[in-house]
Each structure stands twice: as structure tokens, then as C-alpha cells.
């Protein structure tokens, strides 16, 4: 496993969630989600609109508080004050979490300082190159296309070399070349023993990337299958 500032214990799952419940008013978004994902796995979470995929990812990232249940990333609790465990997570969601009036490099410098990354300058150049954005490094974010902003958001998510990557529909808005680049990145990611959990509406992309597929329906994980094997009987098909 690639060394990070917080070396995780390989004996514990990368992601372990138990009994996650979340209600929005009268509507139950998650009704007791149990999840365990090991190191080096790319797990793809499928589900219809409103199935609770984004809510689940946000709870795992520590951005939304679950009404009940526990979340551990690399054995560290995220359901209580995440604190240092947040260093283990990289998150890219629907929003880029970038500042439009800063350049690509300045955005990454800001996050590098927040995460206390040593050797930040080199690391920033590395992730910019990885996302094919080196030639746009000094351009303000507002001048970039949606796809480029999305790639920069990915660069931000992996900047601090987290061991768990949570991606919410990472392929949406990307052209074919960028989707392929992202696929390569995820394969390298899993190859180095790290873990990724992502959601997607694209069955083609999801199944191509996944080591494991999960289907969220009615607020629960209704199907859990190793990629290439038949989906658990009675489970909803990926949407």
C-alpha cells in the first residue's frame, strides 16, 4: 500500500459502515446501510435517482451526519468528529469545491496548505500532469470548461494522497478521453492497494471500472456482486 501521512491498518476494512440511517423529514433516504469494502477494491454504487447514493457518499466522507449508524474509514471513526481521519479521504462530488477566481495552481496550493502537504509544489505539478492540466495551471477556474473543472476537482481530491477515494458520478460531463484517463487513474489507484467507492448512472462505465458492484435501492444495499459474476438473486439491476 502506498505510504501516506496516516498509514492504515491492512487488517481492517478500508470502508466499514454499519446501520446507516438518514431521514429527510418524513422521507427515509437510507434505512440501515451496512457496507464493508476492502483495500485495493474499486466498488461502484448503482441506484436510481433519489436512491440515496450521494447521501451515503457524503456520510462516508463526514460531510453529512447520519441519524444512526457508524462509519469507519481505515478503522477510524468518521461518525464522530472525523478530525484526523479526514486526511484519509479524497472526495469529489457534483460540485468542484474550487474557487472560480483563483487559478488552478492557487486552488491546489490552498488545499495543499490546508492538508499540510510537504513537498506541495512538486505534488501539485504531479497531479496537474496526471489530469492533463499542466498547460492550464495559471488560468482561473472560471475560464475552464466544465470537463476541465471536473478534472481539476479530481486533482484536488487526490492531492493529499488519501487512501480512500469517494467519487460521486465522476464521469459525468467528461469527454471520452478524460473518462479513459480517469479509468487509468482508478486502476493505478486500486493497484497500489488503495480503495475507491464511486457512484454512476452509466452502467457501461461503472461495470468497466468496478471490481465490485453495489446497488442501492429503497435505502438499502440490495445487491452486492463481484464484477463479472451474476448479481445477487432478487436484487435490482444497475441503473
Amino acid at each position, binding site marked *: 500500500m502506498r505510504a501516506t501521512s496516516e498509514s492504515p491498518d491492512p487488517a481492517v476494512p478500508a470502508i466499514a459502515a454499519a446501520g446507516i440511517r438518514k431521514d429527510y423529514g418524513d422521507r427515509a433516504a437510507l434505512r440501515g446501510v451496512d457496507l464493508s469494502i476492502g483495500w485495493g477494491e474499486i466498488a461502484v454504487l448503482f441506484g436510481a435517482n433519489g436512491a440515496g447514493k450521494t447521501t451515503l457518499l457524503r456520510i462516508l466522507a463526514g*460531510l453529512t451526519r447520519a441519524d444512526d449508524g457508524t462509519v469507519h474509514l481505515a478503522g477510524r471513526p468518521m461518525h464522530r468528529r472525523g478530525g484526523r481521519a*479526514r486526511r484519509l479521504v479524497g472526495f469529489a462530488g457534483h460540485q468542484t469545491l474550487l474557487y472560480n477566481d483563483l487559478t488552478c495552481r492557487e486552488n491546489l496550493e490552498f488545499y495543499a496548505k*490546508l492538508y499540510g502537504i510537504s513537498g506541495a509544489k512538486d505534488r501539485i505539478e504531479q497531479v496537474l500532469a496526471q489530469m492533463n492540466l499542466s498547460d492550464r495551471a495559471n488560468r482561473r477556474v472560471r475560464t475552464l470548461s466544465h470537463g476541465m473543472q471536473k478534472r481539476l476537482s479530481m486533482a484536488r481530491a487526490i492531492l493529499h494522497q488519501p487512501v480512500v477515494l469517494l467519487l460521486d458520478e465522476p464521469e459525468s460531463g467528461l469527454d471520452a478521453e478524460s473518462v479513459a484517463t480517469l479509468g487509468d487513474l482508478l486502476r493505478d489507484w486500486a493497484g497500489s492497494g488503495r480503495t475507491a467507492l464511486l457512484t454512476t448512472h452509466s452502467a457501461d462505465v461503472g461495470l468497466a471500472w468496478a471490481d465490485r458492484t453495489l446497488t442501492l435501492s429503497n435505502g438499502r444495499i440490495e445487491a452486492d456482486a463481484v464484477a463479472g459474476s451474476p448479481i445477487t438473486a432478487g436484487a435490482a439491476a444497475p441503473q
Partner: protein
Amino acid sequence: MELLRGALTVAWKDVRLELRSREVIASALVFGLIVVVVFNFGLNRSPGSLEPVAPGLLWVAYAFIGVLAMNRAFTRELENGGMDGLLLAPVSRDAVFLGKMLGSLAFMLVIEAILLPVFAVMLDLPTLSPALGLVILLATVGFATVGTFFSGIAVQTRSREILLPILFFPVVVPVIIAAVEASALALQSGPMTGVWTRWLPLLIVFDALYLVICPWIFGYVFEG
């Protein structure tokens, strides 16, 4: 040390963004100038007539400018989900709060420093004193602390522009009263004993209270 590093990183980011866009300072300055002009024409300006009300007018204007500036400070975090970015980082919520507060404090002090001479001329304020500078600094710390806290809460609602002043003004009333009273004493030609013995200590006490309570509650509000 980590708290300070995180706070300064967030504050510097806000300053950098403001230097690029000049949204907060420009709009607050224009608003401040309009307020001064309206006061200037709206009040009877016979010699000495403005002296009793000038400190009140000054702080009414500063309070409204503060609300305008602080509202914008957090709205910026909504643009692309920047607040999530701050909350994902392994820095304490206190550091995030302190960083946003320091950013707002810097903007407000700049705006106040630019507008003060304009107020002095337009409202016939007597000689400006170092004591007034200290009053402005301490009162602005209180404004920025409470304002940052409520701005962080209000920004998550749809009616944020309305909600911020409704939440902000009742809580910050002690600071406004102390600031007005201290400014009145600081601007007069007589002894300023009351500034040092009563109003400045009161401002310091409220600043300290706000600086302890606001980050503490902010941490709970933004904990997922």
C-alpha cells in the same frame, strides 16, 4: 499552531479572492458612501447639531456595512461547494471559523478606515483620536465574530439576506451600545476616563465571550 496555520490559510484565501474580485470592499464602500450622503442631506446641519448623534450615525452605518460584507464572505463558499472543501480538510472547525472571521475583520477594517475620514468631513465629527481607533478595532472584532457565526448559519438557508441581520443585530447590541458610548466620549473634547474604565473593558469582555462561544457552537453546527 495547527489552528493558526489553518485559520491563516483560510483568511489568506479570502483576502486573495477579494483582491481579485473586489466584490465585498467595492460594494460595501459604495453603500457606506451612500449612507453618509443620505445622513448628510437628511439631517439638520446647523453648527454643532450633529455632534450628539454623530457616533450613533457612524455605528449604524458601520453595522449595516458589516452585514453586507459578512453576507458576501460566506456566500462565496457556496459557489462551487467551497464550504464542503473546508469541512473535508483535516483542520478543526475552529480554524475554519477563525479564518473566515479574520478575513471579514480585515475587510471591515479596511472599509471603516477608508470611510472614517469621509464621515469626519461630512458629519462634522470633531478631531479623531487614537481612542476612537481602539474602539473601532474592538467593536469590529465583536461584529466580525458574531457576524461570521450567523453568516455561516444563514448562508445555508434560502432567506439568507434577511436572516443574517435578524440574527446578528440582537446579539451584537451590547457591542453597538458600548461602541456608540465610547465613540461619543472619544470624540468629545473633555476627559475620556469613561472610555478606558467602562466602555473599552466592556467591549473586551464581549469580544472574549463571542470569541469563545461562537467557534464552539460553529463546530457543532458544521459537524456533518
